[in-house]
């Protein structure tokens, strides 16, 4: 076993001493309270490959990282020898606007990638939380998504080629830099959402979309969740093609509306429907249909969001956060028809546990995000309250043919309840890819489903 000094020395040989951090400075990179022995910042795929070959030879446990916005996701890591930060791999590899595809290094900020593409009025159809901080690689590895997945799909629908560094340092690619390809197995799917437990994504090629000529949002308050859910069902069953259909509980809608400068009533649920298109009249015709389908809404309470207000509203939605020092974020995926119940149950459970709750739901995709805060619960009581909420909501999500994952929680919560909730029955099949791709278990050990 290498000493800490020896380790720093060896890592410096690969990337240069200025790109290695150890000692107290490394504790800023702690995951679930576990500080790494060292932090290393490779400058290329080749350096990443050399580092992994070294780590695998030494049996070092490696945690890949981008900007660190999702380090709270996953089980408590078994051991943290090396945090491997990809922020220096932040370049545009190639971009041909007329092909509407672009390749990026994994450490590029999504925001920076979008700004390059924006010059040609193109975009990557991903709008996950932490949109200004998150790296492309981190978004793909965690399959992070946002309101516009309704229009563009998720990472699995957008990535056409990928380059990864394996646990043993080998570099391989999957897919091709064309929008349609069935050559060999679809390796992109394997790595997306695998939380860096099979290999480290170092480059990805995505299909792009045009920036809509304009987008407007219909926003209205609803007295009850049932009325709001009914409106969602009618909109989804209509000729309207929304870019996003977002449902909020009162706490979340008041905060998001407030941040966009939109006045909001004292109670009720919020429903926001974004419509994009090429011509104002065409967009307005769809908005009019939405308005008609939203029965029981006072027309005086309906807001039409345009321009800056529109952008601010959706930014606040994506980056919604709640917290008074205590915070946990849960994400449920349920059948579209069960979203309303999922929201109501969340409120009921939070009230029982004395927790505060903001709910933001991609209602058109069946995704419900619960932002739990301390509320009236004491700091001592909070972890147990969250754990009990997770158990109740997870049981419901399973019954609604889906699942519930803890996106963020302090270690005290993770010690009480499983982050992922994979069933025993599903585990053996999930263990097999891990055994093939990382038999030594050096990549992110303990953080993925079933403690993989």
């Amino acid at each position, binding site marked *: 076993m290498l000493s800490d000094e020896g380790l720093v020395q060896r890592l410096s040989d690969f990337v240069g001493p200025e790109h290695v951090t150890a000692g107290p400075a490394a504790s800023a990179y702690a995951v679930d309270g576990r500080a790494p022995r060292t932090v290393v910042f490779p400058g290329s795929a080749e350096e990443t490959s050399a580092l992994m070959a070294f780590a695998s030879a030494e049996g070092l446990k490696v945690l890949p990282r981008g900007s660190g916005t999702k380090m709270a996701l996953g089980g408590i890591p078994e051991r943290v020898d090396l945090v491997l930060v990809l922020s220096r791999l932040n370049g545009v590899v190639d971009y041909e606007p*007329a092909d509407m595809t672009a390749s990026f290094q994994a450490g590029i900020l999504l925001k920076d990638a979008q700004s390059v593409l924006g010059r040609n009025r193109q975009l990557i159809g991903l709008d996950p939380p932490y949109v200004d901080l998150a790296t492309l690689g981190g978004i793909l590895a965690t*399959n992070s998504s946002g309101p516009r997945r309704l229009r563009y799909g998720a990472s699995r629908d957008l990535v056409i080629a990928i380059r990864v560094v394996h646990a043993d340092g080998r*570099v391989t690619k999957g897919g091709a830099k064309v929008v349609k390809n*069935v*050559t060999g197995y*679809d390796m992109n799917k394997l790595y997306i959402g695998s939380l860096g437990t099979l290999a480290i994504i170092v480059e990805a090629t995505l299909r792009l979309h045009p920036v809509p000529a304009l987008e407007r949002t219909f926003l209205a308050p609803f007295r009850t969740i049932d009325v709001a859910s009914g409106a969602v069902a009618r909109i989804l069953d209509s000729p309207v*093609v929304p870019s996003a259909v977002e449902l909020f509980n009162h706490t979340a809608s008041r905060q998001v509306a407030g941040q966009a400068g939109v006045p909001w009533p004292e109670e009720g649920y919020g429903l926001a429907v974004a419509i994009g298109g090429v011509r104002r009249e065409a967009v307005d015709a769809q908005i009019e249909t939405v308005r008609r389908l939203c029965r029981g809404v006072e027309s005086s309470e309906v807001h039409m969001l345009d321009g800056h207000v529109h952008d601010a509203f959706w930014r606040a939605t994506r980056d919604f956060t709640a917290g008074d020092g205590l915070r946990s974020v849960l994400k449920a995926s349920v059948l579209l*028809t069960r979203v309303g119940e999922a929201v109501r149950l969340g409120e009921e459970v939070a009230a029982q546990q004395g927790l505060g709750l903001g709910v933001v739901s991609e209602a058109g995709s069946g995704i419900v995000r619960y932002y739990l805060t301390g509320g009236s619960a004491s700091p001592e009581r909070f972890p147990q309250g969250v754990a009990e909420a997770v158990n109740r909501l997870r049981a419901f999500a399973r019954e609604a043919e*889906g699942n519930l994952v803890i996106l963020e929680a302090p270690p005290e919560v993770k010690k009480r309840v499983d982050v992922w909730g994979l069933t025993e029955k599903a585990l053996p099949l999930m263990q097999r890819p891990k055994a*093939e791709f990382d038999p030594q278990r050096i990549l992110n050990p303990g953080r993925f489903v079933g403690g993989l």
Partner: protein
Amino acid sequence: MIDKERIAKELAGVVGTDGVVIDPGELRVYETDGLTVFKAMPEIVVLPRSAEQVAGVVKVCHREKIPFVARGAGTGLSGGALPVEGGMLVGLNRMNRILEIDYENQRATVEPGLVNVWLTNALAPQGYYYSPDPASQTACSIGGNVGENSGGPRTPKYGVTTNHVLGLEVVLPDGEIVRLGAKTLDPLGYDLTGVFVGSEGTFGIVTKVIVRIMRKPEAVKTLMGVFESIEDASNSVSGVVARGIIPVAIEMMDNNSIRAVEKGVGAGYPTDAVAVLLVEVDGPKDEVEALVDPIIEVLKENRVREVRVARDETERLLLWKGRKAAFAAMGQISPEYYVQDSVIPRTRLPAIMGFIGELSQRYGLRVANVFHAGDGNLHPLILYDSRNEGELQRAEEMGAEIIKACIEMGGSLTGEHGIGLEKREFMPLMYTDDDLGAMQKVKKVFDPDGLLNPGKIFPTARPGVEVGPAGQREILKKVLGAHGGGHAV
């Protein structure tokens, strides 16, 4: 050699006597798929009716170490459903039911043998449909579509099969029945559904498929542009996209295709045109109306000779009729054809079309091009007559040259037909040893004993891959020889 009588008797106990085929005359039906140049006789064919029966059959194969291949409708174009000589073939056409349609949750659950278009037909009264629509959709099965990750004309806007499959029930090669994915999004763990789609029947046998169903768009508009040059038609494709418009489909046909189609079905394409372009847009009515003028402007900028906009559904279907019938119509101008399926970045369309024209001259073989221009997915149909000495081989050589050129332009071997047996030797052009090694690890995840569909996808040089038809490697050596058998780019 397997003890056929004993095995057949045991299988009859699983699927019933009417579900086991051993008569050589009846077996002949299964000796090839849509790629008829390859033939192989299975020893036994079984026709199960349920997942439990599939599992029972597979358990026998697993115990006896009998290699086996699954088959849907047998319309595949790369030899993916070609039986293994001396092995078993599992035909899934009896498992053809729609198990559930859940409109409110936008999902349907179907059996693998269901014919693709039957699903859309069943959904139509409620105003819903299933998007992936390969040209063979009136015959091909959804299970086969899952195996090949099939595309079709609608992919530029709506994607291919993988974008519409949310969950699967599969029988693994040891007979275990497992569920992958769900009706809901973001299932836990690795996306094994995503990896399974497009695995060309080498991972397991699909027994249930959960698909996304979509509401029919309020309006659809189809335009046809008639061009005097391939280049103008190609540039129109990029031009439309550059306007920020993503059509549902952009299809191109060249003069040979147009003439074949006009002889065959009479869709009303001008037979003197060098190329026609079909462009279709859909969505809410006002939005679709707003897209038509910009598209026509682009076509005009690219010297379109004539534009026709379908005024009603009858006219629209007529425009599509020619495109849909194109492969079948080739018989009008050639006894046989050999089709390629490679892909290039859209911007390279004029270059590759020019190159295919040169090859056609050099090889003395006519080519009809009818393809998905919107995503750069070529379908050059190389026309030949195998009665003429050496023509088939020349056609295959020419096909290999097209593939090689596409890869050099940054493209892909196949966009929707699959590798199968046909293109496996080309794999090293695109992928390194390590790339292929990673894929073979996934194969081991599902099929550690290599019983399922052996000899497909991976080149014969790979460990554990059996030797296939010899002629294929000879052709490759000749065409790719200068590159030492090819290296991944």
